[in-house]
Every structure is written in structure tokens, then in C-alpha cells.
């Protein structure tokens, strides 16, 4: 390449690389069309012999491919063709963009090749296949990688060829930036965007696992079932003495729901017996078509609000204590990190041991020694004690973490403020209220947001401690998806959880006026 061709001229070399790139682009689009056309689900949509059982073609495409991936492949193909024309015209920007794109393509091919090879090995055995099949599966990606690597070399040379017009620095920087973002964006496309899309699409269908059939569109049926509530006032059951009968746990026993509600599928999530709203012998029954779900929302909200507020108080207390200068602060910080670092599953099991329902349980023994309780309590199986126990464990695990976040906030408050306050003779309490709290507000807000969003998706703790006897929204979603294999219904649950958490996030930003930029 010692000759210096004039810039606007198409040279055989650049035409070759351009043609190869164009072919890749066209090939991507053709591959997409071919994949859709040969998909079993899509074909069954056009299978006349199925008659009225034929699935809808739109549903078949949405179920098999979604929207994001086809649009992505289509966009990639079109951009590749456009860049190919630019390469052939010896446009420097297009050549460099093409070089960067093909670099990532080659790396992607290499990753897929390695993944295919590793997939057949015994320790990651998705399909424990004989050697030949493994190598065969890796052959396609390997060839593609080689082609991409070859093309990359050609493009890199073309981009360095003498006589090219130099690009403005700003453009070069922007191209580099986007190129560096490619792997992260690609990963997030695959692990976040595509699953999110699948969840949303599936939530409108009756999809179940272990079935290859194209699911039916059911509209908002799942959402209607999840969100339908009915409130009825019910009187209590009368005992022999004419007063309200009580169950052996001490709660009032209420009359069952009216028959027509039961027939429609309503079950009571819980009874409201509030002094101001209802007479003492009446309660409002909160009924739902899926009462376990409605109850799980309530459990999640109670868990979140009580544990986060307790954590904030305790965390603030710990942070203020640790903030002052003393020997062993480093060790103290390590101690505070330990509950956070222990896997939640493990700490749930540690607490399971401490909360044992006999005198072997250290909490029971301790409380009995001080005389707070007379007999051992079964903290984890008594319904009224389950949620408080879970909250207690969560507070233990995360208050030190909360304290750590608040400590960072405390450390940026200028010391001079306290000095001048002391000169003015302000009391410690006064200092706290008028200096520490206002200046700590941003740190508190951020810590609150993080912890709240975290607490709303509580899963590990409840799953390990209670199995299926106490559900949060997350454990309920898990049960519907993994145990019942109802993909459609579980997806609708997921979407609702997303909105629940999103609602909290928005409310926080509004209420606390967090400005994080």
C-alpha cells in the first residue's frame, strides 16, 4: 500500500472490504427473515390443517422473537450496508466506525465460540454432548469470527491509509466513546431489555412452561385477576355467651363471606377491625380474586416501612456514635461491614438457630432469664410473630450498612460549624437539630431510597425462613413462576412489582427533592 490514491476514488481494496461488510449487513437481515419464516410457531400460524386452532401470526412472532432483537438486527444490517458504501467511497469516518463495529463483532464471535465449546464440557453441561457435536456447534461461530477478524484487519489498514482526510477531534472522541460503550450496552440489551420485553409480552398471554405451543393473547385478564378487590362488612361469629367468638390464637372469628362472592372466586385477604371505621363486632373484609397476592403486597409494605424506619433510627445512632474520634475506628468499620457481607441466606440460618422454639434458642433463653416471657416462643412459626422476626433480622443485617452510608454524609459536614456553635453556647441537642440533621439530609435521602427499594424486593430472608407460609411480592412471584410454571401470570406479577417499586422511587424523589446530578 505505498501508492497514494486520490481521496474520492474507489480503489479495488476498499471496494472489496466494503462489499464484505455490505454482505454481512445483508446477511444479518436475510438471516432474520429466514429465522422468522422457518420458526415452528410462525409456521403453525399459517398451517391450514390446524383450522381454528391456528395461533395468531403476530403472537407467534412476538413470542418467538419479540420486538427489540429483530429491530436491533435490522438496524445493524442497515447501518452495516450504509457503512459499507462509505468504506467503498473511502470516507474516513465510515471506515473507522466500520472498523470499530467489526472489532466488536469479531470479539462477540470469539465469545460465542468459546461459550459453545465450554457448554459441552462436564462442568457447564447444558447439553452433555459428544465431542464432535460440541466442535460442530462451535464451527459456525469460529468461521464467522475468522471472517470478522480478517475484515477488521482490512478496515484498520484502510483507515490508516495515507491521503485520507483527518477527522475533527470532537467526532473522533464521540466515536471512541460509543465504541467503548458497545459491550456494556450489548450486555444490558441481552440481560435487561430483552427479558423486560419478554416479561411484558408474556404478561398478556396464557403462556405456561413445558409447552412449545404459541400462547394465546389474553389481554389484561391476569392484571384484572391480580387487581380486583371487593370490600364487604361482615359481622363476627357469636359465641355461646352472646359475645364475639375468639379463635384459640385470640383473634375475633368473623362470619364467612356471602355465597355469591365465594362463587365468583373472592377470598378474604384480611379483616379490618378499626375502632373508628367499624363497630367492635363488625369488620371490613378485604377480598380479592388472588388473596395471597394482595396479602403479599400488604406484608411487603409493612416489612419495608417498619424495617427501613427502624434501620434509619438505629443506623443514625450507630453512625453518630462511630463518628467521633476513638481508637479502633477501623476495626469498628469492619465489624459494621460483617452483617452486610454475610450472605442473607446464611444469616437467615444463623437467626433460625438463635430463634429456635425451645430453650436451646438463645433468644428464648435470654428473654426467659430476664423474665420477659414465661414459655419459649416459636418465633418463626407463630403467624403473629413471623413478620416481626423477619423485620428484626433485616434490621440487624442492614442497620450497620445504613450507618456506613450516613457516616460518609457526616464526614463531609465541616467541623468549623460545630466549633462556632459551641462558641455560641449551643447545646448538643441543639447542634444535632440545627446542624447535623439538615446537612445530613441528602445522605439520609439517598440511604432511604436505596434501602427502601431493596426492602421492597425482599426475597432471600422470607424464602429461607418461611418457605411458602409468609409471602412477600417477590417470593410470591417466584412461587407462581418456578413452582406453578405459570409464565403468563408470573410475568403480570413481575410487571406489577416493577410499578410498585417504581412508584416508591418516584415518590421519594418528589418528596425528598433528591437531586443527584
Amino acid at each position, binding site marked *: 500500500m505505498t501508492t497514494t490514491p486520490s481521496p474520492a476514488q474507489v480503489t479495488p481494496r476498499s471496494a472489496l472490504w466494503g462489499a464484505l461488510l455490505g454482505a454481512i449487513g445483508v446477511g444479518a437481515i436475510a438471516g432474520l427473515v429466514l429465522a422468522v419464516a422457518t420458526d415452528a410457531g410462525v409456521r403453525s400460524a399459517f398451517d391450514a390443517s390446524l383450522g381454528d386452532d391456528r395461533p395468531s401470526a403476530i403472537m407467534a412472532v412476538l413470542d418467538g422473537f419479540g420486538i427489540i432483537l429483530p429491530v436491533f438486527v435490522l438496524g445493524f444490517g442497515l447501518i452495516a450496508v450504509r457503512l459499507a458504501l462509505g468504506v467503498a467511497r473511502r470516507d474516513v469516518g465510515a471506515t473507522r466506525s466500520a472498523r470499530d463495529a467489526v472489532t466488536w463483532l469479531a470479539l462477540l464471535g470469539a465469545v460465542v465460540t468459546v*461459550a459453545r465449546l*465450554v*457448554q459441552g464440557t462436564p462442568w*457447564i453441561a*447444558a447439553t452433555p454432548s459428544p465431542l464432535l457435536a460440541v466442535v460442530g456447534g462451535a464451527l459456525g461461530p469460529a468461521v464467522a469470527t475468522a471472517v470478522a477478524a480478517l475484515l477488521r484487519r482490512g478496515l484498520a489498514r484502510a483507515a490508516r491509509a495515507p491521503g485520507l482526510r483527518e477527522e475533527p477531534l470532537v467526532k473522533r*472522541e464521540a466515536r*471512541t*466513546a460509543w465504541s*467503548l*460503550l458497545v*459491550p456494556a450496552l450489548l450486555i*444490558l440489551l441481552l*440481560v*435487561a431489555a430483552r*427479558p*423486560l*420485553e*419478554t*416479561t411484558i409480552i*408474556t404478561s398478556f398471554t396464557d403462556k405456561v*412452561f413445558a409447552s412449545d405451543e404459541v400462547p394465546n393473547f389474553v389481554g389484561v385478564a391476569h392484571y384484572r385477576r391480580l387487581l380486583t378487590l371487593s370490600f364487604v362488612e361482615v359481622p363476627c361469629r357469636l359465641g355461646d355467651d352472646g359475645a364475639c367468638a375468639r379463635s384459640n390464637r385470640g383473634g375475633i372469628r368473623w362470619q364467612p363471606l356471602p355465597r355469591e362472592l365465594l362463587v365468583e372466586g373472592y377470598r378474604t385477604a384480611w379483616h379490618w377491625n378499626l375502632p373508628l371505621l367499624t363497630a367492635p363486632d363488625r369488620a371490613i373484609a378485604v377480598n380479592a380474586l388472588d388473596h395471597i397476592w394482595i396479602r403479599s403486597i400488604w406484608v411487603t409494605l409493612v416489612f419495608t416501612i417498619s424495617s427501613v424506619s427502624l434501620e434509619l433510627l438505629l443506623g443514625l445512632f450507630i453512625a453518630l*456514635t462511630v463518628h467521633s474520634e*476513638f481508637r479502633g475506628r477501623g476495626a*469498628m468499620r*469492619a465489624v*459494621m461491614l*460483617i*452483617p452486610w457481607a*454475610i*450472605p*442473607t*441466606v*446464611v444469616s437467615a*440460618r*444463623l437467626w433460625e438457630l*438463635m430463634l429456635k422454639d425451645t*430453650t*436451646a434458642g438463645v433468644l428464648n*433463653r435470654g428473654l426467659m432469664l430476664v423474665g420477659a416471657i414465661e414459655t419459649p416462643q416459636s418465633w418463626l412459626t407463630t403467624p403473629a410473630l413471623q413478620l416481626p422476626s423477619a423485620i428484626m433480622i433485616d434490621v440487624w443485617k442492614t442497620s*450497620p450498612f445504613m450507618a*456506613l*452510608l450516613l457516616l460518609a*454524609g457526616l464526614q463531609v459536614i465541616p467541623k468549623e460549624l460545630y466549633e462556632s456553635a459551641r462558641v455560641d453556647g449551643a447545646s448538643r441537642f441543639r447542634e444535632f437539630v440545627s446542624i447535623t440533621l439538615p446537612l445530613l439530609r441528602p*445522605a439520609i435521602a439517598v440511604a432511604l*431510597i436505596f434501602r427502601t*427499594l431493596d426492602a421492597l*424486593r425482599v*426475597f*432471600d430472608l422470607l424464602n*429461607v425462613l418461611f*418457605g411458602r407460609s409468609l409471602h412477600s411480592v*417477590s417470593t410470591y412471584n*417466584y412461587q407462581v*413462576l*418456578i413452582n406453578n410454571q405459570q*409464565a403468563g401470570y408470573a*410475568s403480570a406479577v*413481575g410487571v406489577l412489582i416493577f410499578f410498585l*417499586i417504581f412508584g416508591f422511587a418516584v415518590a421519594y424523589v418528589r418528596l425528598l427533592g433528591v437531586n443527584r*446530578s
Partner: protein
Amino acid sequence: MSGSGWKASLRRLPFYLVVALIVVYALTPFIWALSTSFKTEDDLFGAARLFPRDPTTKNYVYVLGDAGFMSSLVNSVIVAGGSSLLALTAGSLAAYALGRLRFRGKTPMLYAVLAMTMFPQISILSGLYLTVRELNIYGTQAAMLFAYPLFTLPFSTWVLTSFFRGLPREIEEAAIVDGATTAQILARILLPLTVPALVTTGLLTFIVSWNEYLLARSFTVTNPSAQTVPVAMAQFAGIVEQQEPIAEIMAAAMIVTLPLVVLVLVFQQRIAAGLTAGSVKG
């Protein structure tokens, strides 16, 4: 004031009592489990006592001989190590772009990354489950390696961006003038400077992946040989409360936790800094 050392100490006594209380509060379950892991069967069912009556190491011997538990340790190392490396690689490239380069669309990208760090994974559990099945990696360690960037990548990107931003700009300007390429700048100048940040971020993503339970459990229900440590721990004797091998469970818990405790003790300052950079700064 200066001469009365013991008097000053005495005045600080309530303070040290509070500190001691916090330490006890944070460590009690851990110490209790440690003691239980050395207890014999008889000791377990008697009234609770802190020190084992006749300490035994048989629980540890049992756990270390348990093939299922040992394979879960290996799986966890593969999954947590692999996903941390992946997150560090993709994350540091993205963070370099977001923290040091100027381009249109940077601010929306930053917000997108921040939003992703708070994304509720549970809400796309069913989509992830379907995707993992489509890719034919369901029930393997690859499923976790595939899915964990969902939370490790946004986190590492966010933390590393704030580190990259803190470096003085003159460093690369000099290199650009000398005609260095982006790859050279990144590999020879910036990466060495960010090694501490990479170590911190790697540690945090490692701990978070090591502790992850929801996805690991969902993806390995049908294949116990791919289970990670938390799943194995949760199922060590099933969730049903009868005849549980408690002492063995606690021995397993100690084996799983000790590496983390050591990491925390050694790197406490960095971990704390990284955690607060991930949430407070920005």
C-alpha cells in the same frame, strides 16, 4: 485537663460501653454460630450456652466431605469470579467513556446506568427465566454468568465512572499530544492509576454475586450440581424444620462466611469507600 488521663477515660466510659454494645449487636449471631459449629448433638438440644461443652471438629469434617457442598463452593467461585471479571471489563470501558470523554447523549446514558443500578431484578425474573431457557443454558453455571451482569455491570460502571472522573485531565492530554491512541491511553496510563478502584469494585461485585440467591435458586431448581453456595445453604436440610443437622449447617455457614470476613477485615476501608461511592456520590 492534660494530666488526668484516667479521668478523661472514665468520662468516655459510657461512650465505650455504647460502642461495645454495637459490636456485640453486630457480631452475636456470628459468634453464636461459630460456637454452635463446634458443638455435639447432645449439646445442641440442651439449654443454650455460649461455650460448647466438649468441642468437636466433626461437623467441619462432615461438611468438607460433602460432595454437594464442595461443588457448590466451586460453582460460586466460578460464577462470582467470572461475573465480576465480566462486569469489570465491560464496566471499565463504559466508565472511561462516561467519565472522561465528551459526546452527545452522555447525560442520558449516565442516568440510564444509575436507573439500572436500582432496577428491581425480581420484576423481570420470568423474562430472564425464559431467555435463559431459550439460550439452552438453564440449570447451568452459565445461566448465572449470563444473568448476573444485570446488577454487577451497572454498579461497576457507576462506581468506576466516579473514579475515572476524579483523575486529573492533564494526564491524558499530554498523552494525546504525544500521539497515543485511545487503547494505549486506557491500557498504559489510566488503568494502572485505577487499579485500586478496580480492586474495590471487583471485591464488591464479587461479594454481591457470591451472596445472590434469587436467580441462582431459580436457575438451578432442576440441577443441584450447578447450585451456588447460598442455594446449597438454604437447602442443606430442606426448609422443613425436623431433625435438622444444625451444627453441620453452622459449620458450612462458617466455611462460607470466613473468606468474606477476611476480605472485609483486610479491605474494610476500600469496601466502605466503594459502597458510599456507589450510592452517595454522583
